[in-house]
């Protein structure tokens, strides 16, 4: 809405193709900015753990009403925060029972996602070797787990050798987690053909 107002004023002055500086100014003066400002420390505090985070955000909100004299900063992008597989505990998840909890593929089916298979892959690898040489070797191929749609699969020969990454791009639900979380930033999400992807009726 604010961008539209800035743009409309600029068009009325017959401007075009320039920077709409009135937009960020209007945003800074808006109630939305104020609202976001008051809760700005929520995620950074919670990133310090549930107990300490709750306590400190509680003080931030209850004592200072969101106007605390501090702003916590995030210094690392999400993809740089993964530890090595060898330094962390594996997590054992229960098997889906088909009643209360489900597997990825039945969930993907319900999203009605669809992509023409014969098209350039919309999940591009900058370097085809990295999924095995770095991601599998150091992080146990986390894309198998952070992708909610089972797009990334490590396949092996019957004797367990020759690991390789298979990309089931037709399953993609366009959440872009791979583009964000790949520790090597080797996956580039681009748009597939228009009209593809999930078809949510009321989500």
């Amino acid at each position: 809405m604010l961008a539209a107002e800035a743009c409309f004023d600029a068009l009325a002055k017959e401007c075009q193709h320039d920077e709409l500086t009135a937009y960020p100014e209007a945003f800074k003066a808006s109630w939305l900015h104020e609202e976001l400002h008051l809760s700005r420390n929520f995620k950074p505090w919670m990133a310090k753990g549930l107990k300490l985070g709750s306590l400190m955000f509680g003080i931030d909100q209850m004592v200072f009403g969101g106007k605390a004299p501090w702003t916590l900063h995030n210094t690392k992008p999400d993809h740089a925060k993964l530890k090595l597989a060898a330094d962390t505990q594996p997590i054992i998840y229960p098997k889906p029972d088909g009643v209360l909890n489900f597997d990825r593929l039945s969930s993907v089916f319900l999203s009605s996602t669809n992509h023409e298979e014969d098209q350039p892959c919309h999940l591009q690898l900058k370097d085809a070797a990295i999924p095995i040489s770095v991601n599998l070797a150091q992080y146990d191929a986390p894309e198998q787990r952070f992708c909610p749609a089972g797009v990334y699969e490590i396949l092996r020969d019957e004797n367990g050798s020759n690991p390789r990454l298979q990309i089931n791009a037709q399953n993609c639900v366009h959440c872009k987690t791979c583009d964000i979380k790949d520790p090597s930033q080797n996956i580039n999400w681009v748009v597939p053909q228009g009209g593809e992807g999930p078809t949510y009726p009321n989500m």
Partner: protein
Amino acid sequence: MEREAMEFDVVIVGGGPAGLASAIRLKQLAAQKGSEISVCLIEKGAEIGAHILSGALMDPRALNELLPNWQQDGAPLNAPVSEDRFFILSEDGAIKIPNSLLPKCFHNEGNYVISLGNVCRWLGEQAEALGVEIYPGFAGAEVLFNEDGSVKGVATGDMGRLHDGSEGPNFQMGMELLGKYTFFAEGCRGHLGKQLEAKFNLREGVDPQTYGIGLKELWEITPEMHQLGLVIHSGGWPMQPDTYGGGFLYHLENNQIAVGFVVGLGYSNPHLSPFEEFQRFKTHPEIRKFLEVARSNPACWPLKPALMHLPKNASTMN
């Protein structure tokens, strides 16, 4: 072969709440001032709302400003929040945090439980009625630049290219949509936005963006367990205390509930699976008691960013 080009005053990439609200506002202002303005909006989903997935709780403040008659005009905000509950979960226990101790951002009085997809469909109808040209099924594939480096518009993707990039039997070349101004309203990790951030150094001097992945399922439950407008949030189990995230369970209209889970993508354990954390979350006694009948439509979506991670000129509905 040259691409066909069309010219507009404003080209908008993305038919979510931000793109649609800006389209509506532009047309409203033109109508108020008695001027003409051409606005084109493209959306990569097959229809408006097809790629929209959110919890969702909605504060109607921005909607009151944009379309004050939304109630008479049938906006799908049908479940006013009736109660907030916040739990810290352990494997089989739950501690309810008294509402008096919850910060303001966990108080939802005056908000609505909505399907953001349906709200976007409704916004799309309002936009079309005002004369916005909406083209669903067209993906913004490429940013086009003027010789002076400014943004000239976008090109939609080609259709019918084969796996190796060659032109197949149904090949159709994309189109150039040129605007005096172009709005990128792709969501929080737009692939064109990513290129623009790099080209124009839009992230200079701001913190790295943090993201979350949300997963959600819609369930229809027995009426005895349903309480219209009940909002439940949780922290704690099944995730480790050092991992940011939590669950939600919202009671919509028609005995439906939206149950979901959010995992901050700043997690450190590469063995973590957000999808399976969500599946495990549903087995908690405080959650499973609601899940009695058949489900439909689980899915996943990226969350909107918090304030200090917004890149310069980020778009929001406001």
